[in-house]
């Protein structure tokens, strides 16, 4: 049997008002991109607790994307600015603990930027594929269930 190619699991935490719509636009525009991303829609990047990211890794993510509105465009005026502050300290903290920062990426993608969504996803999938599966985290000894591999492959793209 031939060895199966590693397909990274990317969890994307998206703001409802911009990137989510941007991903939708990519879909309606019939743009092709790699099918490795699972989207979790939230009202605003400002509502993303860093624990979401930790949980995603625990549940088998190999890479994470956090994406919201461009500065100045927040539906709630300042949610993305607060989020940006958080990632400014959280990202180095994870790096300090030995987690490759390339596994967590951040972007601003508006509802009109279907093309940027496609580029961003393709780029993060390629980056994480090159890094390989996040075995360090997934193999952390737990007496809990072996969850890695449980998340089903997405049935549709964009």
């Amino acid at each position, binding site marked *: 049997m031939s060895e199966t190619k590693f397909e990274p699991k990317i969890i994307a935490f998206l703001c409802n008002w911009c990137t989510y719509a941007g991903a939708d636009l990519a879909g309606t525009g019939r743009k092709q991109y790699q099918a490795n991303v699972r989207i979790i829609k939230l009202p605003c990047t400002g509502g993303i607790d*860093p624990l979401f990211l930790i949980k995603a890794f625990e549940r088998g993510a190999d890479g994470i994307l956090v994406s919201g509105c461009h500065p100045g465009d927040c539906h709630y005026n300042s949610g993305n600015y607060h989020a940006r502050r958080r990632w400014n*300290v959280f990202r*180095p903290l994870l790096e300090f603990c030995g987690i490759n*920062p390339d596994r967590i990426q951040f972007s601003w993608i508006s509802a009109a930027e279907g093309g940027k969504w496609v580029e961003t996803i393709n780029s993060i999938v390629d980056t994480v594929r090159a890094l390989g599966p996040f075995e360090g985290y997934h193999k952390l000894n737990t007496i809990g269930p072996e969850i890695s591999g449980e998340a089903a492959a997405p049935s549709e793209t964009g």
Partner: protein
Amino acid sequence: MIEELRKKAEELLKNGTVKVVFGYGEGSTPERTRPVFITKPEDVNKLTWNKYCVYNLTTYLKRQETRKLGKPALILKGCDARTIIVLLKECQIKREDVYIIGVTCDGVGDPLATKCEACDVHTPLIYDDLVGEKRENKEVPFEERYAELDEYEKLGEKEKWEFWQKQFEKCIKCYACSNICPLCFCDRCIVEKNQPQWIDPSAHPRGNLSWNVTRAYHLAGRCINCEECQRVCPVDIPLNLLNKKLAKEAEKSFNYRPGYNIDDELAMSTYKEDDDQDFFK
């Protein structure tokens, strides 16, 4: 200095300014002190002051048992007094509800605690009374303050991971780190919430990683480097390295140091339009 402290405490209790004095008393061994709560003027002789007074007594401001003793006077070193500034900014206390007996300090612990090595608050920045000779608070350059981190920051990704896994593996989830922390004052900690269960309650490596990272992160831009978490850890995890790393990032990115200036906006509850976003795509 001890006499001066006792006299001050006696005076405050006698004239009714405060109901209780949070101070340091003799410990169970000569190398230890312990927190004491003096409510009667005749008990002030229990107060002491020496190089073993490492505790940050502001932690007792969050505890129901000590709060009900009435308005306190706290004996605070420069580092501890920084906590007061953060607590005031975070609306946990009112200035008129605490009386601060500041003490000037040349460092505590034997060997000297690492927090003291780059101390720039020998004289507290906030106090009602000062005991001890006033020292000049010399500024310590950025690099020197975070020098402790250098050897860990330069490790490779894998080495960092292995180092921290080895540390976190030891964690027994006793929560001494968060219970001693004067700034961990949530009535119900995230780890105690189980609907949903964000952090595994089990003390296995996965649960320990999420707990330790979250504890540290919740102190981002808030930790005043009293090192109490690290001192109390029964399994000797260098927790303060995480806190210090976050303090460094907060200072680098937001030019903010908690507990120095009461007029500064809290780092994590404000933002600037030109905050760094180089890492955003």
